[in-house]
């Protein structure tokens, strides 16, 4: 793996249990992909079976890479801003000053709830910021939310 964009020692990683959520969603994506090729096979077009093969390969890759995808998600609370990173192939790092917080959402999907996980979304005035930390244990998510709100309050800024 190539060098990370921003050095990776001090990242707080998300719960390993989040792999479960990733596996389920990869499985669903894989099934949808395979399902999409079925009509072509039924119609007897020449690319029906190759398409199914490709779909299966993609699905297996998605499943196999799920643990690494989860390990690549991380966040770091610095003095004045929050860093967030994710992605292996398409890697990205976002820095958001705490004072830019407009609101914080804590969401739980059905699979994540079964695993006792929650997702924390940091919303700023820019729609493209897109900082969503998935796979936090519920207690940790609530605590992180309270800390972030308190930090934002102490560094309140305009738009």
């Amino acid at each position, binding site marked *: 793996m190539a060098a990370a*964009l921003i050095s990776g020692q001090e990242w707080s990683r998300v719960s390993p249990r989040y792999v479960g959520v990733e596996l389920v969603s990869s499985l669903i994506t894989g099934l949808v992909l395979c399902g999409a090729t079925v009509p072509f096979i039924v119609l007897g077009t020449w690319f029906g079976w190759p398409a199914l093969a490709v779909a299966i390969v993609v699905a297996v890759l998605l499943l196999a890479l799920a643990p690494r995808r989860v390990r690549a998600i991380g966040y770091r609370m610095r003095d004045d801003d929050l860093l967030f990173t994710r992605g292996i192939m398409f890697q990205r790092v976002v820095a958001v000053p705490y004072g830019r917080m407009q609101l914080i959402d804590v969401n739980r999907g059905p699979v994540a709830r079964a695993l006792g996980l929650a997702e924390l979304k940091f919303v700023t005035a820019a729609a493209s910021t897109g*900082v969503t930390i998935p796979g936090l244990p519920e207690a940790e998510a609530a605590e992180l939310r309270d800390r972030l709100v308190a930090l934002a309050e102490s560094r309140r800024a305009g738009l």
Partner: protein
Amino acid sequence: MTHDLADGGWHRLHPATPLLRGGIVLIAILGFVVANFRERLIDWLFGAPELPGDPLQTAYERGQLGWAALVVAGLLLLGIASFFLSWRLHTFRIGDDVVEVRSGVLFRTHRRARIDRIQGVAIDRPFFARLFGTARVDISVAGQDAKVQLAYLGGADADALRGEVLRLASGARAAEAQVDTAHPSPPGEREGIVNQRVRELLAPELDPSLAAPESVVKIPPGRLIGSLVLSGFTVMVVLAVALLLTTSMLGRREFLAFIVLPGLVAAIGYYVNRFTKTLRYSIAGTPDGIRVGSGLLSTNNDTLPPGRVHAIEVSQPLLWRPAGWWMIRINRAGAAGEATAQASTTMLPVGTIDDARRVLELLVPGMAGSETGRLVDAGLTARRGEGFTDAPRRARLLRPFSWRRTGFARGEAALLLRGGFVWRRLVVVPLARVQSIRVSQGPVRRGLGLAELTVHTVAGPVRPELAVVDREVAREQFEEWSAAVVIAIDSDRSHRWAERPDDERGRSDET
């Protein structure tokens, strides 16, 4: 006859409001009915031939004329009453901290906006409203459809209201502001109402006693026409016409009449609309922010308090390059997704490089003259380098033309991002307005040792991003910029731009 609308009490809108908001239709119907009756009367008196199928005639023959008249009159009265009632119930109040509007007859709404969150105050004067000497005031705050609209107010009232709202928002003390808002009012009573209207129609759309008298930019009508002709829209029209001509050569002539005529009318309508909307364009700096106005028949002018500009883009479409014209657009909170978004985000529809420089100076104070000013010049016209850190040569695989110009520089309080070879552009982002920063790379960029830097601001036409940067540089700049943004946010005081530091301290002690 200016009232003090900002005295903290509830006020009503201008009495002509029901008429301007659609009541005029009722009057038209009334006029139509009356005119019909008149025709009937004349017919009865002079014995004109009877027209079969006329509802009035049928009603008359069946002896139901009285009922018909009653129903029409009843509906009209009901309509007029409801318009009047909605006007009676539509009240607003300018408090020290909030602007409030209560409206609605059956479904009541009560909207409150915090004055220190104001992103802009716009005064629109549609042609019809101008005839009544009224104006519409839009006080916008950040958020989708988040604005307080006061339609309609008397023209002078609207100007006074804007001054007062901005003064409250600025945090300046009332006493010191009183001096500069108290302008000598002309003796309006002695002037006839007709003269007054005519004077208002001819007056510039910025009240000269409130704005700095001179706009920093003047757009001659010739240049405006030129910019419209040399636009992407014209290219589309020409392409469409060429396509139609070739199809008609192939013998499908019937297309022509059906497509060309309506298309032509639409295209001309578009040009005329754009032309009259941008005519008499002016932009001037005032103590309460930048004031942009334009329009010939329907005028509008918009005040942007300091620190409400989130990103600025100076760009030059290819067709404008021979003429050396530039346009300036901005991102601002509270304007995205609205019908008027295009107008309210364009700060300079077309101008020379000097005009662009002057407008930039207004938008980012301290821009020209200093080191930053030199950077702006380099950002607009330089082919590469000149104070900007450029993308490395290997970036030409991803950006075969624009890699030379793709680069960035740090001004005193702003980031400058340069790009575009065909469509040259320079993006300026005030550090204090940055929401977040992202560095990212996909497999291709990783292979080339490149990365992508994106600066997130509120939504708008400007997208501040550097598509190709050397990876080491990107990593370094990511750290540097995010630190600089935090410092800039800390020292930013523009949300209360006229407040003194000691006022600020007093305020924070209270809370």
